[in-house]
């Protein structure tokens, strides 16, 4: 804001003045311009002045702001003339007619002119007068200013501070006291007025002492009553005339009904149990406290009861009952309809207390009939309840009690015999005859036999212990057999070879059947029972077999099936299923009956097959052995046998360079072969656009002319010397190249050593000692011309030079 602004301000001011002159509304606008310029000269801050002049300038300003463009030219022109004029009468104070508002300002500042210009220059603030402001406010829709002009004027402004009035504290206090006194007096007056109406005890009624006055009073009262009655009657008649009587009655009747009675207590809850109310006892119930904003319904309580309940609860809490009883079983039948919840002890805390309560029904009564009924039901249930606790576990006695003994049935031993294969069973027709009779009687129903089997039940069950099997045919037959054996045992091992074919066949069939049936039976029986039986049988058999052992050892059994199977030859897949681990054990009869029974007839064939299989195995082993028994060193081909042998020898020794391969063989380069067998594919190179274009994405087919081409691919790896590499070495080479580093010092030295040793080995003379002793020998022989050498003398003398005589 330099001087330029000032000038502009001046110009504007002049313009403003001119415009003001053009459309002058205020009285002293012409003077305002020179005043303004004067003000400028004096360099007064125009803060206060601006506001004072606001009233005058507002209108012009508004007009000017709207018509600025148009009027500027003219106003400026006008302003200039004015300015010239203004300077002339600028000094004329008398011409100045201050507006009332500006009186004080004039006094303060002679040369001070309120600015009419709207454009505020640096120190200039435009302002509107109150009227103008009010007009503006009315236009904007605001209420007019609250004028407290005096106060404002008195206070002054920041720029022109006015001496504030002296605050006299004493005076202030006195004023306050006065006010208080006045207020008190007023109140007193009012009170007295009010109280004055009330009759005090001191004032006696006139009629108390004076009977005449009393009589008069009573008469008066009576009269008034009569009058009132008459009036009421009149009113009623009037009502009836108008038909309003019913309404009136209703209205009055309502008031009667509104009287509160027991009926109105219907539905209220009482927050105690019904049991706490005893017959013949009156208890006063009051409304329970509740929050002001709570909209819940009212609850009636008795204060004493409440206290009692609280005390009881505290006592319970203090008793320190265990919180958590994990194994507490809900044995009470009472709460059959209360669901058991987890961590019930927290329910009160979380959900809040839920006190017992009951509702009053019609007529405000409540009876405990329902509760009593529930109680009765509960009592009944409790009586009927059965305890779920079972009898506690007691020590089992080791000995059977007499009661158990009664039910205990001795199990009949199942006498079973394993079929002895060596033992010849001479079955004659005669033997079968009695057996036939028996079997016809017997029960063939496998269902009964089979499924009727159950495990040996407990003593309580009344079933015959099925451990006693009905004698099966097999067992009976076997028994027969055994008895036969015992009798025919004396016949000795001589007779086995005299078996006849057809008898053997029948026996085979029988054995198969038996095996099948036995298998069925045994599957249904309990394993424990089986074990017991088996153990028993074993014992019996062992005792019996001890006698028969010597007899058995010498026997060899031939039967048609075994011979046939032997001659069949080996079945290639036979025995490979892996179930034949107990082939050898079949020979040993101190085995479970199961296996033998199952093996039944097959065992005969099996063992023979096994026998033959064993043979084959042996043969196979022999073959293997023969294959693997190659000597490390080949038989040295004798050189004088022929050229072929010589060539072979040379080849083996590596003296020959085998160049049988194609001509285009790669000569071993000095450095290791660069990626002959692998390449590191750079997949990133595929991505650039232009190379992509070149690649062929179409359908490819094999070449027709190369249909029969089946190359014999043989991948050979060579090292730097041209030696063929073993797969291990080839891989080592590959990995060295891949990782970019080879072996360390030690490793390479070892490798070199090994290579040298190999080379040496190849160079080694196979027909001579490393020192070439034979060659020396031959030389000596040539020299001596004798086919022998005389070994004598010290070593020193034995060299080629000394050999020659």
């Amino acid at each position, binding site marked *: 804001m330099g001087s330029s602004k000032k000038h502009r301000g001046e110009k504007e001011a002049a313009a403003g003045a001119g415009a003001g002159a053009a459309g002058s509304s205020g009285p002293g606008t012409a003077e305002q311009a020179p005043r303004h310029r004067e003000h400028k000269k004096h360099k007064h801050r125009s803060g206060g002045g601006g506001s004072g002049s606001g009233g005058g300038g507002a209108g012009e300003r508004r007009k000017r702001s709207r018509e600025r463009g148009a009027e500027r030219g003219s106003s400026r022109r006008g302003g200039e003339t004015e300015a010239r004029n203004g300077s002339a009468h600028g000094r004329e104070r008398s011409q100045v007619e201050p507006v009332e508002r500006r009186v004080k300002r004039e006094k303060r500042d002679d040369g001070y002119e309120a600015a009419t210009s709207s454009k505020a220059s640096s120190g200039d603030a435009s302002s509107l007068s109150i009227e103008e402001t009010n007009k503006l406010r009315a236009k904007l829709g*605001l209420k007019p200013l609250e004028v407290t002009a005096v106060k404002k004027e008195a206070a002054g402004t920041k720029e022109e501070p006015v001496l504030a009035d002296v605050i006299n504290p004493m005076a202030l206090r006195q004023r306050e006291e006065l006010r208080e006194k006045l207020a008190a007096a007023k109140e007193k007056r009012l009170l007295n007025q009010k109280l004055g109406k009330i009759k005090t005890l001191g004032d006696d009624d006139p009629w108390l002492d004076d009977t005449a006055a009393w009589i008069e009073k009573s008469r008066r009262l009576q009269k008034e009553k009569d009058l009132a009655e008459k009036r009421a009657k009149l009113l009623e008649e009037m009502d009836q005339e108008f038909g309003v009587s019913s309404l009136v009655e209703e209205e009055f009747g309502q008031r009667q009904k509104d009287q509160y009675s027991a009926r109105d207590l219907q539905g209220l809850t009482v927050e105690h149990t019904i049991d706490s109310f005893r017959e013949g006892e009156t208890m006063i119930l009051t409304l329970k406290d509740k929050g002001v904003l709570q909209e819940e319904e009212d609850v009636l309580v008795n204060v004493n009861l409440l206290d009692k309940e609280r005390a009881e609860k505290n006592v319970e809490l203090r008793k320190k009952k265990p919180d958590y009883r994990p194994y507490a079983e809900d044995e009470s039948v009472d709460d059959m309809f209360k669901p058991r919840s987890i961590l019930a002890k927290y329910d009160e805390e979380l959900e809040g207390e839920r006190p017992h309560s009951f509702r009053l029904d019609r007529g405000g009564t409540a009876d405990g009939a329902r509760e009593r009924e529930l109680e009765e039901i509960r009592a009944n249930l409790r009586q009927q309840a059965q305890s779920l606790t079972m009898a506690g576990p007691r020590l089992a006695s080791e000995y059977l009690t007499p009661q158990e003994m009664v039910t205990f049935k001795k199990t009949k031993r199942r006498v079973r015999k394993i079929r002895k294969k060596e033992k010849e069973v001479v079955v004659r027709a005669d033997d079968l005859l009695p057996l036939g009779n028996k079997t016809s009687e017997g029960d063939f129903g496998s269902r009964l036999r089979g499924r009727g089997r159950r495990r040996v039940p407990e003593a309580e069950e009344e079933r015959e212990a099925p451990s006693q099997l009905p004698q099966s045919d097999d067992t009976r037959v076997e028994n027969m057999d055994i008895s036969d054996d015992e009798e025919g045992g004396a016949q000795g091992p001589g007779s086995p070879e005299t078996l006849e074919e057809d008898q053997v066949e029948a026996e085979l069939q029988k054995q198969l059947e038996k095996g099948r049936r036995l298998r069925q039976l045994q599957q249904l029986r309990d394993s424990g029972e089986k074990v017991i039986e088996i153990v028993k049988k074993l014992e019996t058999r062992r005792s019996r077999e001890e006698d028969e052992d010597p007899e058995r050892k010498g026997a060899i059994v031939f039967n048609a099936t075994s011979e046939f199977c032997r001659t069949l030859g080996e079945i290639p897949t036979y025995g490979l299923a892996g179930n034949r681990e107990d082939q050898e054990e079949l020979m040993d009869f101190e085995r479970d009956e199961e296996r033998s029974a199952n093996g039944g007839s097959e065992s005969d064939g099996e063992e023979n097959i096994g026998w033959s299989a064993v043979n084959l195995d042996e043969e196979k082993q022999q073959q293997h052995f023969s294959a693997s028994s190659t000597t490390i060193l080949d038989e040295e081909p004798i050189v004088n046998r022929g050229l072929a042998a010589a060539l072979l020898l040379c080849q083996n020794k590596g003296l020959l360079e085998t160049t049988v391969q194609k001509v285009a063989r790669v000569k071993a380069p000095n450095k290791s072969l660069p990626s002959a067998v692998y390449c590191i594919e750079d997949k990133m190179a595929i991505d650039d656009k232009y190379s992509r274009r070149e690649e062929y994405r179409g359908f490819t087919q094999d070449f027709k002319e190369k249909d029969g081409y089946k190359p014999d691919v043989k991948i050979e790896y060579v090292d730097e010397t041209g030696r063929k590499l073993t797969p291990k070495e080839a891989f080592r080479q590959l990995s060295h190249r891949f990782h970019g580093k080879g072996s360390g010092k030690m490793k390479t030295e070892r490798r070199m050593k090994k290579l040298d040793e190999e080379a040496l080995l190849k160079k080694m003379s196979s027909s001579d000692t490393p020192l070439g002793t034979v060659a020396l020998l031959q030389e000596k022989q040539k020299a001596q011309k004798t086919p022998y050498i005389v070994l004598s003398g010290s070593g020193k003398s034995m060299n080629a030079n000394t050999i020659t005589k």
Partner: protein
Amino acid sequence: MIEVVCNDRLGKKVRVKCNPDDSIGDLKKLIAAQTGTRWHKIVLKKWYTVFKDHVTLGDYEIHDGMNLELYYQ
């Protein structure tokens, strides 16, 4: 009635007469009428306190003769 001075430090300085119970919005309208801008373009501030339109001058404790900073948005 109080008089409030609004200065935008660019040459515009106005003194506006208003009531203490006028809102800032009304004050802005008055200022706009005097300065020739639009009232909703005016932002009245005091340091970093922006005076909101819906609050009255009395609530802002704007007394007579206070200076407000006039900005534009």
